[in-house]
Structure formats: C-alpha cells, structure tokens
C-alpha cells in the first residue's frame, strides 16, 4: 500500500500594525477614536506602573518584582477584549492585564511588597491569584471553563502564561482536556522568548508555539505580540468563538521581555545588547504612537501628558500602599479555612 497524507496543517500569523505605525486597514479591529486613546493610555499606565515598581524595588520599598516592559501590547490588547464577567487566570507577570481590567494598582503594589491582602480580587472581577508555579494555572482555567459551560454562564476564561510554561506537563494536560471537551477557554501565551536565561530554542524544537494547539485538536494562531491591534483582534475572536460553544483557541503572542526576568536577575549575563536594542525598536507603545499620530490623534505632548496622568495614578497608589497598616499576625489564619481546626485556632491566639 502506498503511503498517504492523512492530514496537513497550517499555522496562521496575524499582524496588523507594523513598526512604522502603518496598519492594514482590512484587518483593523474597528476601534473608535475614544477606544484607541483608551488603549494607548492603558499601555502607558502599564509601562509607568512597571517603571515605578522597578524603581521602588531598587529603593528597597518593594520586594522582588517581575517587569512586564515590552509586553504591554500583549497584555493590554488581550485584556481589553475581556469583560469583567470573564474569568482570568494570570501567571505572575500580567500586571498590564490587571490594570486594564481595573484591578486596583494599590493592591498590585501591596502584593509585590509581600502583603498578600493584595491578592484579594475585588468582587466585580474574576481574576485568580498570581500563579508562581509555572503552568499550573492552566488546568485550573480549564476547570473554570467546565464550570461556566455547566452553569450555562455566558462568560469565557482566559489563561495567561509564558513560553517556558509550554514545556510543562500542565500545559499539555490542560490544553488536551480543553480540546476533548471543547471548552470556552482561550490560552494566551506571551512568548517573550526568554524563560529566565533559556531562550525559546532551548524550550522547544517546534517552529512556532502556536502549532502545539494542532496536537490538541483546536486552532493555534501566532500574532505579533507587540502589535496591540493583532492581539486585541485575535483575543476578541477567540473569546467570541469560546462563547459560541466552538471551543478553545491558543494564541501565541510573539513578544519580547525587554527587562530582566525579575529585579533579582541580570539578563546581561545571557543575552546580547544588540538583541535587546533590536526589540527596543519594536516597542509596542512606540508603534501605536506612530499610528495615532498618523490618524491625527496624537502629538508628542500627548505622550508626556499620558505619562504624567499615569504617574499620578501610580504615585497615589504608592502613597496609599505605604500608608496601610502592616498585616497583623492573625492575617495568616483568618482566611486559610472557612473554620480553623482546634490547633490552628490556638496558634492564632499565640498558643
């Protein structure tokens, strides 16, 4: 018997806005001028928050912090497609998602000082706590999507992770299960090309991460992760698909971690300044500014104004955070169980 081709696959890449700020009019997601400016301000807020957080860490006012610089388009663009009713499962480097969805900046800062009260998501949002154990949030997101489907809830689930997570077993188990049950979940991979010191080619021999979805029976798409329009459009479409019952989507946002892995890391030990410089030219905010300028929606002074407004917001959050009383010892016990065991109850009282 001759061999035959059983199946062949293609991997799409979506790119709308180039580095010069030129956009493909056919593919633009149709945002109003107000929405465009909101998008821009949200990206500037994410960048400003991040810069302030790094500076605070250097001053000893914040603990170890994982910068998001360079990933603002991937985070803000995807978050803008979400609604507060959707469920979001972040990793630990999604502050731009949090801020865009309205998570209080003061609580983000609080968390990164080591005050876990910052992880109590406001009641109007469904954002899971930061997940430090890489990829382990993925099966949980799949479980939440099971629950939404079971409850006939119109929401969808978005789960965020990085390129390193795609090497973990929970990535496989989660995507596989989501495919089997056609669940309303969107897998958003911010491929920032570095998992601490290991580059993408050290994580996988695959040409793209997007193609991994093929093995789970649903679509994977790569988008230019520094192109906020591409990220927004792909996420919006994937969420619509999820809500319509057509199952999961995997979105690989190809981006770049412009800063260190965390404030405890020194990326100069393992990557070249030329590479970083190349990606600085692809800065997601820069290209949006060029686009907005071309539309007559932005002049240089607007950048300063947007940064100033964001800075004021973050500075107010810093002041608020630093004025908070330290957590009391009882805080360790008070939310760990619906009711404490007898030994814990004694320990809480200091026995």
């Amino acid at each position, binding site marked *: 018997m001759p061999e035959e081709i059983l199946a062949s696959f293609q991997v799409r890449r979506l790119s709308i806005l180039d580095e010069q700020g030129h956009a493909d009019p056919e593919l633009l997601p149709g945002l109003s001028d107000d929405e465009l400016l909101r998008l821009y301000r949200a990206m500037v807020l994410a960048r400003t928050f991040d810069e302030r957080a790094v500076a605070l860490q250097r001053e000893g006012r914040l603990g170890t912090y994982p910068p998001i610089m360079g990933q603002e388009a991937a985070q803000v663009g995807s978050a803008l497609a979400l609604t507060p009713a959707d*469920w979001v*499962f972040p990793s630990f480097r999604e502050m731009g998602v949090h801020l865009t969805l309205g998570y209080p900046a003061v609580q983000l800062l609080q968390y990164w000082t080591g005050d*876990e*009260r910052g*992880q*109590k*998501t406001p*009641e109007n949002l469904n954002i*899971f*706590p930061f997940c430090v*154990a890489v990829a*382990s949030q*993925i*099966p*949980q*997101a*799949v*479980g*939440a*999507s*099971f*629950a*939404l489907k*079971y*409850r006939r809830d119109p929401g969808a689930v978005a789960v965020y992770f990085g390129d390193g997570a795609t090497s973990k*077993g*929970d990535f496989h*188990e*989660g995507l*596989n*299960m989501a495919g*089997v*049950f056609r669940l309303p979940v969107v897998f958003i991979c911010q491929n920032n090309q570095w998992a601490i010191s290991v580059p993408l080619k050290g994580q996988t021999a695959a040409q793209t991460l997007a193609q991994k979805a093929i093995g789970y029976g649903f679509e994977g798409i790569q988008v230019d992760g520094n192109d906020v329009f591409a990220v927004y459009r792909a996420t919006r479409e994937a969420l619509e698909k999820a809500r319509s019952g057509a199952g999961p989507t995997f979105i690989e946002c190809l981006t770049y971690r412009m800063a260190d892995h965390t404030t405890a890391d020194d990326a100069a030990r393992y990557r070249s300044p030329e590479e970083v410089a190349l990606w600085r030219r692809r800065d997601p905010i820069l290209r949006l500014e060029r686009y907005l300028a071309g539309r007559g929606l932005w002049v240089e002074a607007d950048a300063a104004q947007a940064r100033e407004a964001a800075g004021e917001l973050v500075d107010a959050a810093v002041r608020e955070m630093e004025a908070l009383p330290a957590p009391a010892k009882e805080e*360790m016990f*008070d*939310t*760990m*169980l*619906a009711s404490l*065991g*007898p*030994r*814990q109850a004694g320990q809480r009282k200091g026995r």
Partner: protein
Amino acid sequence: MAQLNMVQAINQALAEEMARDQRVVLLGEDIGRDGGVFRVTEGLFGRFGAERVIDTPLSESAIVGAAVGMAACGLRPVAEIQFMGFTYSGFEQLVAHAARLRTRSRGRFGCPLVLRTPYGGGIKAPELHEESTEALFCQSPGLKVVVPSGPYTAKGLLLSALRDPDPVLFLEPTRLYRMLREEVPEGEYTVELGRARVARAGTQVTVLAWGSMLERVLKAVANYDAEVIDLLTLNPFDAETVLASVAKTGRVVIVHEAAKTAGFGAELAATIAEEAILHLRGPVLRVAAPDVPVPLARLMDHYLPSIEQVKAALDEVLRY
C-alpha cells in the same frame, strides 16, 4: 436498614448528594460508563449523565487542577484518582493550589473539592496501587485528610466532605472496600469531620488507628481491656478525644500501615508527649510498616502490620 459494603455506601452517598445538589459533579478516569475501576461510581453515569459524571483523559494533574477551577467557579467537584500512587501527579495541584487558594485569594475564592482515592495495601495489585502516604498530605495546612474505616463512616464522612467549604482528601481503604458490611441508613446522616470515634471502650491501653488498620486492630484487641480510637480525620485530628483516652489508660499503641518514619503516628506520639506525658505509664509504641517502598503481593504480609505485631505491642505496654 440495608447491609452495605463500603463501595455501595460511597456510591449511595454520591448519588444522594448529586440528587440533592446540582453543583456536585464527578470527574476522573473510567468513572463514567465503566463505573470506576472499583465500581464505586457504578450507575451514576446512567442516572446523571456525561455532564455530571465526567470521563476525563488520563490526566491526573489536570483532573485535580480542573477540580480546583471548578470549585472556585461555583461547582462542588468530586475528583477520583484511581489509586493513591497516582495522586502524586496531581500533588502540586492539591498542595500548591487547592490547599492554599482560600489563603492566597484572602478568602475571595474557596476550593470546596473532594479528592477521592483508594489507598492501602493487601489487594494483590501492581506497583503504586497500594500506597499509604497520608502523612505527606497532612503537612499541607488547608487540606483536610479523611479516612473512613467502614461503610457507615464512609458514607457519613463523605457527605460531610461533600458539604465542606474547603478541600478534602478522602482516602478509601481499598482492602476493606468489599470486606466489611454494615448497617448503612439510606438518606441523610453525616459523620462530623475532625472528630474521632471510640470504636471500642476500654481502660488499660489506648490504641489509635484509622482506615484499613482499624479492622485488624479490633481483631487484635479481642482479649484485651483496650480502648480503640478510630481517628477518621487525620487533619485536623481530634486531639481532645485522643488525650482524654490517654489520660484514662496511661498507655498508647499507634497502628498505621504507612512507613514508620514521619508517619502520622509520629504526630500523634509527639502530641501525646507534649500534652499528656504525665499520664503515661510507659512508652508510646508505634506498630507501622517498615521504612521500605511498598512491596508487591508476595511480600505484603511482611510489610503490613499484623494482628500478632499489634498484640505484641499491647503486651509490651501493659508490662508498665
């Protein structure tokens, strides 16, 4: 009242709770059409459908992880892992997430899941099918660890676990699944979590046991004036009942089929030493498995604590 074995009692608890509470869903490998490898979920797929009795891929980490997400998102998932040795794949989800979600979210998200798994030796099964590593899970504050010892406690504890607002690891002693039959009331009754049970009253020595060992201990003490305490919940364990008995008898034997070193018996012995040492007449003795990996069937009789070993320990403490 019907005489049921433990498989039937657990099945009845699941069926009744699923009928009562739409939020209860089951997920695991082969639990649907096949009714589970031990047939514990038999008939539930037909009665409640594929949406509530979910046959998952072979995927322990995702079974536990999905249960975490379901629980936080308003359901009451009951995950089954086929054997305790396979919970290790889901260990991270259970320990790093289920047990901590309420803390990490400062109370915003609870995690009311039950993870059922058969545990323990003596069933002539392949490797990793006869583990008894309950102490590993007792080091995880936020996770309750429950071990029934017979059909009656199995149903009552499971109903409590299913209604508990926090995650519960529910260990089903495989060796006893079909060995014991007891009167099990139909319908509503619960056995409270965190409470031990005096399985047999006595005055000269306290024997502490749980799960699969209880049956053996009750045989061993037949000719002794021993008080047998069935712990039922290991975390949080009922120190009050244990210490009250020790105060009365002054002698203690702890029996578990897990390896001796850092087994749960060590926690019990340490608590007794801290809080009741002045009541003791002699050493606290542990009868436990040796510190070796669980062997296969041909060596199992040398591994599991025997009735004779329990009697020897009783004789020893009664010399004081």
